[in-house]
C-alpha cells in the first residue's frame, strides 16, 4: 500500500472517531449516507475498471510503443493524447512507460500530452462523471482538458 493511501485511510478513521465522539447520531447518519452512495456507484465503477482491464490487455503498452516508434512528432503527439484520453493508467505505471518510450526515441512533447490526457481526460470514466455532473459538464470539461493537454505539450516543446 502506498503512503498516500495509508494517509487517506488514517484521515478517514481519525475523522470518523472524532465525529463519533462528538455526535453519535450524526455520525451514523453520515455513514448511512456514505454506504448508500458507495452502493449506488459501486457497480458502475467496477464495470468500468473491468473495461479498462480488458482494453489494456487487448492493446498492451508494448503495442503503443511500436506505433509511436515510427511516427512524426505531431502525429505521435496526437496519437499519445488520444491513447491517454481513452485509457486510465495509474501514475506509477504511466511514468515508467513514458520513460521507456523516451528511451526508444519518443519525443518529450508527445509524452507530456500522453501524461496529461492520461490522467485528466477520461472517456472510459465519463459514465461515472456523467452520473455526478451530467453530460454537458462532462463533455465540456473533457474537451477543454484535451485541448489544454495539447497546449501544455506544445509549451513544453518550446521550453525544453
Amino acid at each position, binding site marked *: 500500500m*502506498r*503512503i*498516500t*493511501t495509508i*494517509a*487517506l*485511510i488514517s*484521515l*478517514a478513521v481519525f*475523522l*470518523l472517531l472524532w*465525529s463519533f465522539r462528538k455526535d453519535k447520531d*450524526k455520525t451514523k447518519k*453520515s*455513514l448511512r*449516507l*456514505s454506504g448508500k*452512495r*458507495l452502493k449506488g456507484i*459501486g*457497480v*458502475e*465503477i*467496477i*464495470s*468500468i*475498471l*473491468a473495461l479498462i*482491464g*480488458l482494453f489494456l*490487455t*487487448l492493446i498492451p503498452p508494448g503495442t503503443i510503443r511500436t506505433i509511436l516508434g515510427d511516427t512524426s512528432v505531431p502525429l505521435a503527439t496526437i496519437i499519445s493524447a488520444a491513447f491517454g484520453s481513452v485509457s486510465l493508467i*495509474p*501514475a506509477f505505471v504511466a*511514468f*515508467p512507460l513514458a*520513460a521507456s518510450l523516451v528511451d526508444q526515441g519518443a519525443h*518529450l512533447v508527445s*509524452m*507530456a500530452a500522453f*501524461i*496529461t490526457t492520461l*490522467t*485528466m481526460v*477520461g472517456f472510459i470514466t465519463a*459514465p461515472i462523471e456523467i*452520473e*455526478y*455532473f*451530467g453530460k454537458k*459538464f462532462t463533455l*465540456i470539461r473533457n474537451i*477543454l*482538458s484535451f485541448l*489544454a493537454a495539447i497546449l*501544455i505539450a506544445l*509549451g*513544453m516543446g518550446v*521550453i*525544453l
Partner: protein
Amino acid sequence: MNIEDLKGLVKNNKIAAFTICAYVAVLVYSPTIFFDSLKMTSIYFREMVEILPAVFIITGLVEVWVSRETIMNTFGEDSGMKGRLISVLMGSFSAGPIYAAFPVTYTLLKKGSSVSNIVIILSAWAVVKVPMLFVEAQFMGLPFMLTRYVITVPAIIGIGVVTGKLVSREQLIRGSTEEDILVERLVQVLPGHNCGACSYQSCHETAKALISGIADPSVCLPAEDEEKEEIKKILESHPKKQKAK
C-alpha cells in the same frame, strides 16, 4: 426472474451489462485474453477497495459537519484567486484516481462551491498530485516535471474558469429547484436498492411520486419503519407540494 425484471436490471446497469457482454465475447474468442484481463482488472480493483470507502466516509462526514457558509467562503463564486489556489492545493494533496474525485467534488458543489473551482480540484487531482510529481521527477527528470507543473497549473485554472462560464451551478445540481431538493432528501432516506418493488423504476422515481402524493411511503417494501417515519416527516414539512395533487 421474468423477462421484465431482467430488462429493468439491464436498463439500470447499462455499463455493467455492456462489460459482461464484452467479457463473454472475449471468453469465447480467447480464454487467455479473458484471464489476462481479469488479472489486470484485479490490480485496479485493489486500488479501488483501498481508496473508495475512505473517500466516501470523508465525503459523508463533510456533508454532515461542514457548514454551507464555510464551503461557500472557501470555494464559492466570490472566493476569487485565493479559492482557485486552495482548489489546486486540495487536488494536489489527494489520493486515488480521478473517479474518486467525483463524489468529493459533487459534495462540495452541492454545498456551495463554484463550478470553476470544482473543475480546478478535479484537474489538479488528476495531473499535479504531489505523490505523482515525485514519480514523475524520478522517471522523466526534474526539468520535465517542473516545466510541466509550471505550465499545467495556469492551464488548469484556465480550464476551470472557462467551464465555469459555460456551465452554471443550477444546471449541475439536481437539487436546484425546491422540488429537486426534496427529491434529493427523500432519495437519501430511501433504501437505494432501486428494487422496483414499489412499481417505480428507481428510488428517484419513487421520491418524485411520493412528493406529488401519488404514492404513499408504505409502497417501499425494503424501507424500515424508522425510515418510513422519516419520509413522512420530510413530506409533512412541505405540505404545499402534497396538497397540489
